């Protein structure tokens, strides 16, 4: 059974598009990266899964339970870190965390102490006095204090300094090693690349690709640079070649398909230098966005 299962999920806000016909599944223990530019529908998808908003059509289930009918039950085992954290301004950090913990059965004081220590929280500060980054740190502790089975992170690193980001990623990796499934949305590819096993790419409300990290980088595309004198671009206009462009007296392109076709072509001309490499996620991403 998948931890998250989304089938043909569609959400319109009145007439404006949220997401259209989105389907994917996230398995237990995965870190699933969800990438797309601003306004692509990442937060909409997460809010649908948290039953903050109701789908226009389609179905979504978490832990095998439908999100529209079993919201409270599902949320007992979910942790959520929104991109921007808002809490009751007048409360102190300690009270806010205890208030949050009071909704989950069991005693969480030890875990609160441990997490807030790690995140260097000042427990007696008022929420209204905290900076954006410090609120985010409270959000991390609040999202994790009840040891959820599934974590939703929506642009989680925004506002955190690099040191905190590293601590945060270590924490997420540790949670993941304990078996926690992570759904991680971001438009920063580097961090998704570092953390995720599998990614989904969303664009203008629709999923354009779901693939595991490795096959996305290895099996799909190669980035090829060729240097040669009197190089004729037309020679590389093979099927599977995209983004063909001159660069520093040579050529650069992406290739998807049987690599032998390119090698044969390379063998037929005198080349000075060739590099064949994995494209970065960034480049794959830009490719999907053109």
């Amino acid at each position, binding site marked *: 059974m998948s931890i998250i299962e989304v089938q043909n999920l569609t959400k319109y*806000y009145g007439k404006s598009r949220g997401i259209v016909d989105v389907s994917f599944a996230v398995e237990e223990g995965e870190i699933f990266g969800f990438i797309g530019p601003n306004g692509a529908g990442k937060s909409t998808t997460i*809010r649908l899964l*948290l039953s*903050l*908003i*109701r789908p226009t059509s389609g179905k979504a289930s978490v832990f095998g339970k439908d999100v529209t009918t079993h*919201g*409270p*039950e599902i*949320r*007992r085992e*979910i942790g*959520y870190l*929104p991109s*921007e*954290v*808002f*809490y*009751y*301004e*007048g409360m102190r950090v300690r009270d806010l965390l205890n*208030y*949050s913990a*009071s*909704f*989950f059965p069991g005693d969480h004081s030890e875990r609160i102490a441990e997490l807030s220590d790690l995140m260097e929280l000042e427990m007696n500060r008022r929420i209204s006095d905290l900076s954006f980054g410090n609120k985010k740190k409270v959000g991390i502790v*609040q999202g994790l204090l009840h040891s959820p089975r599934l974590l939703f992170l929506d642009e989680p690193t925004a506002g955190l300094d690099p040191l905190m980001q590293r601590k945060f990623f270590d924490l997420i990796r540790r949670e993941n090693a304990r078996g926690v499934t992570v759904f991680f949305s971001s438009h920063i590819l580097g961090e998704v690349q570092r953390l995720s096993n599998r990614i989904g790419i969303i664009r203008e409300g629709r999923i354009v690709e779901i693939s595991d990290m490795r096959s996305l980088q290895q099996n799909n595309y190669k980035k090829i640079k060729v240097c040669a004198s009197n190089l004729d671009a037309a020679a590389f206009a093979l099927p599977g070649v995209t983004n063909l462009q001159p660069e520093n007296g040579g050529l650069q392109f992406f290739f998807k398909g049987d690599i032998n076709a390119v090698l044969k072509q390379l063998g037929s001309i005198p080349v000075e230098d060739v590099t064949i490499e994995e494209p970065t996620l960034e480049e794959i991403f830009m490719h999907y966005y053109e």
Partner: protein
Amino acid sequence: MNIYLRELKASLKSLLIWCGVMALLILIAVSKFSAFAGDPEMLKILDTMPPALLEAMSLRAFNLTTVTGFYGVMFIYFGLMGAIAAAMWASDSITKEERDKTVEFSLVLPVSRSRVVTAKLMAALTNCVLFVAFTWGVSVAAVQSYQPDAAYYRFLSLEMAAMFAISLIFLAVGLLLGCAMQRYKVAGSTAVGIILAAYMLSIFSGMQEDLAFLKWISPFKYFDAGEIYRSDQLDPQFLALSAGIVLVCLVSAYLAYNRRDLYI
């Protein structure tokens, strides 16, 4: 329980302000009353005024020179304040979560929306009970020097029951507006607008015979102080109507909030 307690704490300041204003209103009014307490000249002056005006101010039903009659005139202010406070508490407790963008925290906790609405409703209801009780207490204390008779206490208890009933109606209306309005930011001011419109209607319905049907529309007319004084009870017909309005508003509020899209 935790949501309820947090709501109470969050609205405590507002409750104290409302109580302060109410105490001030009663004290100022009672000190004005001292000017015509037991003064027959006052009645003569009132007799020269046009009847429609007196009706509008509900001065016709009461003998303003007795403390009971004076409280009959005061009732509309209690009703208005109770209504506005109740509507604001109810609508604000719901809409502030979206306005302050805290829905992404409070509704991601493992609680159903119905439970959230119930807790907030209970907190607003508690405020209403406390507000009426406070008004009652100050009223008793403020008129002690006029040695009120048993009839005054009886009438005051009916007035406070009526104030509570009006509060309940607008509590439910406020809750519904907070839960259902897409433009949640104006829910509170819409509620106050409805209350003032209802108040105006209650005045018009008393001024002209052919506008009498308006009394069915305005909750302020369900509990008319003059009528309560004459009949020595709250009209059961209007009590039933009020209960019906409260019920419809509450059920609609729950339904609307459960279907609502919450986003910031």
